[in-house]
């Protein structure tokens, strides 16, 4: 049968949802303990929210699901949420004015051309509005670490870059405003060639650029190998570099593992400071960064802010399904639907088991295939056969209290 599901969209089946909820619950627990509070934004936003802030690169904007809705006579386009952070910034601006720690679980829409990849992706995100560098940056990095640890994701690699540093470097090249924007666009789209083509009039600076972009490693090595030219660089470049070093130093003190990788900036124009990308088994499972100018671009006073998101879809694939409650203690209750006494007995037994906290599925048609620990067949008012599927043991009993006793329900 031809699938009637929209191209690029995905169904989540019970096993997927089990993992999804596990991720969500773990995420909620972690964030709540760090003092973050949950928010939710609408699926539909005005396109102008994402262009007005100059925050998504043209290539990302061209993948946004934008259209005219029923209200679109004025030519105002709407989009299916193409990014998680910008709507949160809008929500914050419209409702609050003091520092706020938010978390959210949301879907993001992007048109992937082939239709083979997901066009709707879920993420668990965290935003710290009003959180200044470097303390807030470190808080988020530690939170991300703790979260992935709680989820049981192994081999997590944290790659760090610095958007402020990258932007200040591009500025040093002395390009025209449009060429500068184009260069930044290429860098943000992950075009490595852009860095290689970058040349300034300052030989020392070019050397610095090459060593910086190619460096991969820890702070101690970084300080030895990457040297800022003694003169001729802007205070902006210097202050961004020292901010980067401050954060790394703190991470070293806290024994947090990371790798410096300046080229690891991707897709978001709104980042102004530290940028993080999280990998496990070669797959990207999260990312984020500092975006101190986003709120002022949206028309508010300037405000420091940072955030990150864990990508649910790749993480789901990395989790193995834990033994669930059904196979541990669940009960499948079978009976003949034609015998009214049996039906009655089944419903009443089910109710008492459920109120004792058990999962109970009723099966009058004899068609259920779920793997419950217990199967109880009710053939008469006073005739119950109990099978423990785990041990293979079997009992035949005559009263409800006996059933309850064997199932170990208090």
């Amino acid at each position: 049968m031809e699938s009637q599901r929209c191209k690029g969209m995905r169904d989540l089946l019970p096993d997927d949802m089990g993992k999804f909820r596990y991720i969500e619950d773990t995420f909620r627990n972690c964030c709540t303990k760090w003092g973050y509070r949950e928010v939710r934004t609408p699926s539909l936003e005005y396109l102008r929210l994402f262009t007005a802030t100059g925050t998504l690169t043209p290539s990302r904007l061209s993948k946004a699901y934008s259209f005219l809705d029923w209200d679109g006579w004025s030519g105002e386009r709407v989009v299916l949420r193409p990014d998680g952070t910008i709507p949160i910034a809008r929500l914050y601006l419209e409702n609050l004015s003091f520092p706020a720690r938010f978390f959210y679980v949301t879907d993001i829409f992007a048109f992937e051309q082939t239709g083979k990849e997901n066009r709707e992706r879920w993420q668990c995100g965290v935003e710290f509005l009003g959180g200044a560098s470097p303390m807030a940056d470190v808080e988020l990095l530690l939170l991300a670490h703790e979260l992935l640890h709680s989820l049981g994701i192994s081999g997590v690699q944290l790659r760090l870059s610095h958007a402020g540093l990258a932007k200040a470097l591009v500025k040093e090249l002395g390009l025209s405003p449009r060429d500068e924007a184009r260069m930044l666009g290429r860098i943000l789209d992950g075009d490595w060639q852009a860095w290689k083509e970058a040349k300034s009039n300052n030989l020392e600076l070019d050397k610095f650029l090459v060593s910086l972009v190619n460096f991969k490693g820890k702070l101690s090595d970084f300080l030895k190998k990457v040297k800022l030219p003694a003169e001729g660089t802007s205070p902006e470049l210097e202050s961004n570099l020292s901010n980067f070093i401050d954060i790394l130093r703190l991470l070293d003190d806290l024994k947090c593992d990371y790798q410096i990788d300046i080229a690891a900036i991707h897709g978001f124009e709104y980042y102004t400071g530290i940028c993080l990308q999280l990998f496990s088994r070669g797959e990207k499972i999260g990312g984020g960064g500092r975006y101190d100018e986003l709120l002022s671009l949206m028309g508010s006073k300037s405000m420091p802010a940072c955030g990150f998101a864990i990508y649910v879809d790749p993480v789901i694939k990395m989790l193995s399904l834990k033994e669930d409650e059904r196979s541990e203690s669940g009960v499948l209750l079978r009976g003949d639907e034609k015998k009214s006494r049996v039906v009655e007995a089944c419903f009443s037994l089910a109710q008492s088991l459920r109120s004792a906290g058990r999962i109970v599925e009723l099966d009058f048609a004899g068609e259920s295939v779920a793997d419950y620990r217990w199967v109880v067949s009710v053939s008469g008012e006073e005739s119950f056969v109990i099978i423990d599927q785990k041990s293979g043991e079997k009992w035949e009993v005559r009263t409800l209290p006996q059933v309850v006793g064997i199932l170990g329900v208090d």
Partner: protein
Amino acid sequence: MANQSNYIKLALPKGRLLPDTANLLDGVGLGFEGYSEQTRQYRLKSAKPPYLSAKIFWEKDIPIQVSIGNYDLGICGLDWIEELLVRYKASAVVKLSTLNYGEGYIYAAISYESEIKNLDGLLGRQGNWRIVSEYPDLAEAFALNIRMRRFRIFPVWGDAEGYPPENAEIAVLWARNEEELERKGLLPLMKLLPARATVIASRESLDNKDLASVLNRFAPMLDNREFSLSFEEVSSKEGFVGSLPRPELKKVKLALPDGHQQPPTAKFLERVGLNLSHYSGEVLDYHPSVDLDWLGVKVIRPQDMPLQVANGNFDLAITGKDWLLDHVYRFPSSPVVELLDLGFGKVKIVAAVSQEMPASTMEDVRQLLQKGKLPTLRVASEYVNIGDKYLCDHHISPYKLIPTWGASEAFLPEDADLLIDNMQTGKTMAEHNLKIIDVLCESTACLIGNKESINSPDKKEEIDFIIQMMRGGLS
């Protein structure tokens, strides 16, 4: 007849590219009799080779027709191909090569009247820019490419050059060259792409059919150059020395139709005593002058009027009820209202099928779909929103709506199964061997207005005056 798999169907353009395309086909021995500017026929048969047939379309229709697989090959301007691909990137259409003709470019341009002289000037300003274009998707790509912060796009059926400066800041439009734009009072900011003639193929046909017999003949004419969207900045020029008539800003703005609706509208306005110069007769002035000093009149396409009135570019307009309905179905919250039924220009909006189709009602059509005798109902219509609503209301499923830009009747039976179109006498329908299976509604010319303008204390008196004047002319 050659077997179906060898049969090759071509979609050929009307208009701008027709003479050169006809020459090209003649030159490579694939000429079609009747493919000329005077032609009244749409379907063309080739004498040699006999496995070849062609149909004439508006250029705009060709990429859509080829991508849905109705035609194996097509020739049209790169502009229309990119307009499709920029939004529907996964369209099953392949650009094979540009041809060495098809002049002009798609430009983004502003009015010479504007204080802005180049792209940096534009981006340096805060504004909610209005962009008017026959190419709404290219227009959006342009806006996003230059990182325009806030913009609105007004799609129009034609004459985009007539909108700036008063009804839009920017137009994205075709022009032969920069001089031509200049003559129209427009200053180019960016060249989006060359509007070259291009050969396209349906991806499915390329994969499953042997097109070599036709493509080999084209080979010497292909210039094998790849053109696509390039967003090339046009360097600003100094000292434009033309004199441009600056349209005076008037208190009340009225839009009048061109095309078929123009003669009866001119006659009606004459009868009610609104004296316009150059709205009737040989030379149509897009800014006819009028003997009421507070009234500004502009001629635009009737299809574009509801949207233009909704956005306050005009307070009043004379259009057809069909276009008002199509607009309101799409945008139920639009602030456009019908003020007067003017009674003339009566047409019926009908649903029609080919005489050969075993259906005489929409219920029959629904049954055909349900029984699997038709896989999908392909519906050709200029009225996309009226059509959509009608098909939903009749529980037709599945259907595909093919938007057309005139001459929709020629789509049946091979490229569409159902037609939703207007009909005056039924002559065209009969000529095309079509039968009417339903009448959706009747449409006449009407005066429409913007709700806010009508209630504005500033304009109320003048608008009431116009309404009273027109009411006097109703028979």
